[in-house]
């Protein structure tokens, strides 16, 4: 099985849209401070201003520039998304491959726990924890990552198990290779596409959850995020301000999730040989 994710992605409009959009967001997130004339947190007496040349998306209830908040919100979303997904993917890779290779009691116990976590609705646990702890961004990322690796670990374990049976790995073993050597030299490289997909869906999940928690108002209120903006804007939706206050972060969030979904969907299609198109004689 040799899959070239690059090629698959290049051929999918969905994925190209996703990558383009993500890159755009990434640039905005990185260069945000250069792009915005305002500090997102700086209050002014000019509250609820309609969009104008000075404030392209108007101002909110304490006179903060909404566009600046939107741009800084991209930072939060992407930071949470990428960092969480990275952590979760690393965790799932370690646990998935180690259980597959080690087997035995370790495998059994870990997989039981993994199964249990899969059926627990993660966001409920997170809400409960967040309600008590009011986590800052870093704690939130850790929390999301801790609750987000289990599904991935299962997939990776399954994949690693089938890889393990493959000839080149038996061959490596017959040369006396250690588990570590096999993991790093043979299994991990073959797992890259699956890890990539896990990562992509991890990003989606984390972005979604961060926004949800902020929307519930149980995220760190000093961090500007899209969910927070919507949470605040919803309180004022009896005014017309929702048009430039509530809709933009919602759309930004949706576009982010959509673009990530696009990439993930394409990768998934590429990874599942059964889903690939082929003429059968």
């Amino acid at each position, binding site marked *: 099985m040799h899959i070239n994710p690059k090629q698959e992605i290049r051929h999918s409009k969905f994925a190209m849209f996703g990558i383009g959009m993500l890159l755009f967001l990434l640039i905005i997130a990185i260069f945000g401070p250069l792009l915005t004339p305002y500090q997102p947190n700086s209050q002014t007496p000019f509250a609820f201003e309609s969009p104008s040349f000075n404030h392209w998306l108007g101002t909110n209830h304490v006179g903060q520039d909404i566009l600046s908040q939107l741009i800084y919100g991209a930072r939060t979303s992407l930071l949470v998304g990428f960092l969480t997904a990275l952590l979760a993917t690393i965790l799932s890779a370690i646990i998935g491959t180690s259980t597959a290779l080690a087997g035995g009691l370790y495998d059994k116990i870990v997989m039981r726990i993994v199964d249990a976590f899969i059926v627990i609705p993660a966001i409920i646990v997170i809400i409960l924890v967040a309600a008590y702890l009011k986590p800052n961004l870093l704690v939130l990322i850790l929390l999301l990552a801790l609750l987000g690796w289990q599904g991935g670990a299962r997939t990776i374990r399954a994949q690693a198990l089938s890889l393990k049976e493959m000839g080149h790995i038996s061959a490596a073993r017959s040369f006396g290779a250690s588990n570590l050597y096999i993991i790093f030299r043979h299994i991990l490289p073959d797992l890259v596409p699956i890890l990539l997909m896990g990562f992509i869906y991890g990003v989606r999940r984390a972005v979604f959850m961060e926004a949800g928690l902020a929307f519930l108002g149980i995220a760190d*209120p000093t961090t500007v995020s899209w969910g927070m903006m919507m949470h605040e804007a919803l309180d004022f939706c009896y005014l017309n301000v929702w048009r430039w206050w509530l809709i933009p972060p919602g759309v930004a969030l949706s576009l982010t999730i959509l673009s990530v979904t696009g990439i993930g969907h394409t990768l998934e299609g590429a990874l599942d040989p059964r889903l690939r198109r082929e003429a059968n004689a």
Partner: protein
Amino acid sequence: MPQLKTRMPFRKTLFIILPLALVCCLLVIFYGGRGQPSESTSYTIADSMGDWGYPSPYTHYSRGPGYVRMSLIFETLVWKDDSDFVPALAKDWEYIEAENAYIFELHDDVTWHDGTNFTAEDVAFTFEYTKQHPYQWVDSSLVESAEATDEYTVKLYLSQPYAPFFQDVVGTQPIIPKHIWQYVTEPEKFTDAQAVIGTGPYTLADYSQEHGTYLYNAYSDYYLGKPAVDELKFVKISEAMIPSALEQGLVNAGDVPPEIVSELEEAGLTIITAPHAWNAKLMINHQKEPLSSKQFRQALAYAIDREELVQITQRGHALAGSPGMMPPTSDWYYPDTPQYEYDPARAKQLLEGLNYTLENDYFTKDGEELELELIAAAEFEEVGQFVKDQLEAAGIKIDFSTLEAKTVDAKVEAWDFDLSIYGHGGLYEPSVLHKVIVEKSFNSARYDSNQTLSQLLEAQLSEMDAEERKELVWQIQEIYAEDLPALTLYYPHWYWAHDGSVSLYYTMDGMASGIPIPLNRLAFVK
């Protein structure tokens, strides 16, 4: 012979379900039914929380709206309208200074909702009962004993002279029927129909906790005559939707955010403004260096532009705070309270007087940078941010973080903070000053280092002469503003909007012990 299974019920079911669902959708969409028009008059009040507990004295939630729902059923001896105390169950009263007691003449034509006659026994019973089972809003130790001198006369002996006795005790304590409650040992768990038998103008017809709704029917044998509104409803509507609900005519009244007021007025609704009885304060840890210095606290007051704060964080919908705590609109307000007009230069002067020197934007002392920790709950995030910005502009570095409200409470109570932002209501009756300045409650300044102030606070509580008391309260405000154990930042404007079918008003000094809600039961009676 094995049975042949019928083919694929799934698909067929689907073809039945889908059109059915479509029809339902259409019905639902075109269904505009908002209830049939009824002949009896009905009044609907919107509330964003909805549920405020079962409206018996022991089960309503301990916030104003809970009391309001209870007060439609249970009455007090005296009550208030928009300008003064008015008779309620008691038609007349008299203070006997020698005995430190009140004699109340009761109405003789009052019946409980179950038809039983209301008598002085019920009143005496109520005050005895609260000794065992304190009613959450009234300090039962204030009444030494209650005595029914005849069928419609009751005498209450006070344990000490207590100026706000009407406001805090007899104007707040709901009277409960002896014939029902004498058998109730666990009033907090008493939630059957008997628990809501009172003397008030309304009887409870339905209460739904999950929908957060209440339905009241007029009590036709009410001693002041059958109430004008036959049916009273409280419905739950989320805060942001109340303006729309008012505009769409779904509800008759509700509290509304300030931004929408002018729009609602244009739409023909009546707007009423609440007195400024709630304030947000900058809590200062006066137990701790350098905040234990009065000059330092004054410097803080000079450094914060409270007018600007109102403009930015409240979008102008508030009054700037008075350092004496009592709002300028209050009768008790001391007109010459020191105001600490915004003056950063003065603030710097004061700090320099305390041996601070300004280096690189921030003050330092003995080489150490002056940095204060500011904590606040999320609801004060904007205010906190503003305070931080202003203090930093004045050279005081601020480490601002928002915490879970409960954590803030805990840290403040343990003196584990420098500055905090906090809010409380009740600024009607000066007795609140005692509570929030010297008492050990967590949102009190707990400031007992000024003996004069402490004595004045005690004295005003027991001063039964109104003019004398006002003098004391003025002095308190002056000293408080001078010492600044805490700094009032602003008093927000609160609005209600209603359609005018009932003339709602804000009760003088708030309903009962100070509830800033314009739902006085008397408005629905006349």
